[in-house]
């Protein structure tokens, strides 16, 4: 069963500013979906629509079978949200904040305390749990927000730029936790970010958005197939035979495109057979970033809309 379904979802602000245009996708249980695009692409609008904070201009959405525009409070029971606009109370300690949000989600006092303690330990905040939030760094606040979003064990987590402001070490521990949640608890994660490299590390599928239009959706393989499914091989050699179709990128450095790894050995053999010396060979598939820019390019060229 699909956990999150968006069906031709559109949102227009002030009758003219189209933030989202006919966006459709569906996410399965335990999927980590990266909703990727530059600032202002419509990512936060999508999170707000999926949480019932905004009413769609057109289309509809369902989260675990609940329409957030009709029953937002029921939908909130099974969803957790982290956004930069959803902060916690500075005059309370980290622990007090979590216990408060626990009770706000209908969890009993002692159960809230137990869960708060577990989450604080899991997110490495145990030493700071009795400090007022005012003394927390941005990274600590971000981790506490994540703990807050998980206190009621949601089935779906909406994370809007969850690692912004985190140091690399904290970002890595947050990543591991997100992966673990999806894998072990079957939590569906809807992750918005403009950091494409970061998304590639943890997401199992992607939606690429630009100016409110969903450019593509699928796994990285599916997205590659839309642009170029082959590989780019970089070869450092003193000479490359003319019959090999290559593109010179630097001194003794050439780039060739192949369909698969099987195509690489014949090329190497050919260079060596003709007396060329090879110093280095690297092969890579298109990264998410490259796919994204290729798709944007394609759209701007008028190929897609």
């Amino acid at each position, binding site marked *: 069963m699909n956990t999150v379904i968006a069906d031709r979802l559109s949102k227009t602000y002030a009758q003219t500013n189209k933030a989202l245009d006919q966006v459709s996708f569906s996410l399965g249980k335990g999927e980590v979906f990266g909703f990727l695009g530059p600032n202002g692409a419509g990512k936060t609008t999508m999170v*707000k629509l999926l*949480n*019932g*904070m*905004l*009413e769609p201009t057109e289309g509809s959405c369902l989260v675990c079978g609940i329409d957030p525009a009709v029953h*937002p*409070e*029921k939908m*909130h*029971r099974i*969803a*957790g*949200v982290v*956004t930069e*606009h*959803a*902060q*916690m*109370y*500075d*005059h309370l300690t980290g622990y007090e904040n979590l216990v*408060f*949000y626990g*009770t*706000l*989600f*209908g969890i009993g006092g002692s159960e809230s305390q137990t869960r708060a303690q577990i989450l604080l330990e899991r997110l490495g905040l145990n030493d700071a749990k009795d400090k007022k939030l005012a003394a927390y760094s941005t990274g600590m606040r971000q981790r506490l927000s994540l703990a*807050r979003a998980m206190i009621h064990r949601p089935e779906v987590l909406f994370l809007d730029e969850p690692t912004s402001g985190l140091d690399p070490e904290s970002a890595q521990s947050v990543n591991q936790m997100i992966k673990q949640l999806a894998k072990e608890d079957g939590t569906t994660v809807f992750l918005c970010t403009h950091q494409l490299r970061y998304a590639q590390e943890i997401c199992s599928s992607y939606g690429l958005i630009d100016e409110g239009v969903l450019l593509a959706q699928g796994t990285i393989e599916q997205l590659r197939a839309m642009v170029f499914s082959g590989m780019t091989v970089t070869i450092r050699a003193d000479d490359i035979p003319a019959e090999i179709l290559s593109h010179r990128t630097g001194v003794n450095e050439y780039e060739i495109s192949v369909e698969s790894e099987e195509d690489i050995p014949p090329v190497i053999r050919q260079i060596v057979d003709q007396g060329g010396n090879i110093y280095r060979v690297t092969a890579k598939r298109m990264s998410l970033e490259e796919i994204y820019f290729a798709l944007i390019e394609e759209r701007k060229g008028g190929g897609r809309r």
Partner: protein
Amino acid sequence: MINSMQMALIKKDIKSITANKRMFSVILIVPLVLTVFMPSIFILSAYFVPEETSDFQQLLELLPSSQQTGDLTRMIMALTINNIMPMFFAIIPIMAASVMAASSFVGEKEKRTLETLLYCPLTLKQIFYSKILASFVMSMAVSLISFLGMTVVTQVEILLLTGSMLLPDINWVVILLLVAPAVSLIAITMIVRGSAKAQTVEEAQQRAAFLILPIVLLMVGQFTGFILISVWILLGFGAILAVIAWIYMQSAMRKVTYEMVLN
């Protein structure tokens, strides 16, 4: 009617104010001035320099004959307790409700904690009613404590100066049970309605300050001897306020949407 989740929100809102020294001191200082210092000044001047209080002459003439006891000092003291103080007192629930509601609605918006609350499994109306109730409870508590404080201080003063007490009359029942709750609710609703536009707590509080205007007009009327606030006027005034408060709050609540709150 109120579930445990709403109760958690109400407790948190009240605790936020009592833990904030700056806000809490505002809530305490105004009632202290209005209910302890001011009546004391009236009572002491009525006792020591009754002739100086001739400004009250026109007002005293308006008093019903049953209260025209002939003892000028005690008449002025009775006028202070039962006719003048109730008007000043009405400022207290307006002030307490505005400070509390501004912190509860606009303060949360300013500190970006309101959006977090909206993601909890309560309807928007439940969240708003909880917050209104928190402000209302706080405002009523401050009003009641102020009244008790004023009564103790003024009665001790009057007892020491004149040998017998002058207990508050029925005006106070109307003030405490009708006028104070109604003006609190109006002040809170004004803040709630303005909270979509107001970006800072101060901005929101300024709106509620307009509520003090009709009270000032009543005071002017009273001091110039134009009207005497009798229990019937007060009752009618309170009933009208209560109806306005209820209609005003209901219409404000009908318009509340997530989009408006997050704007």
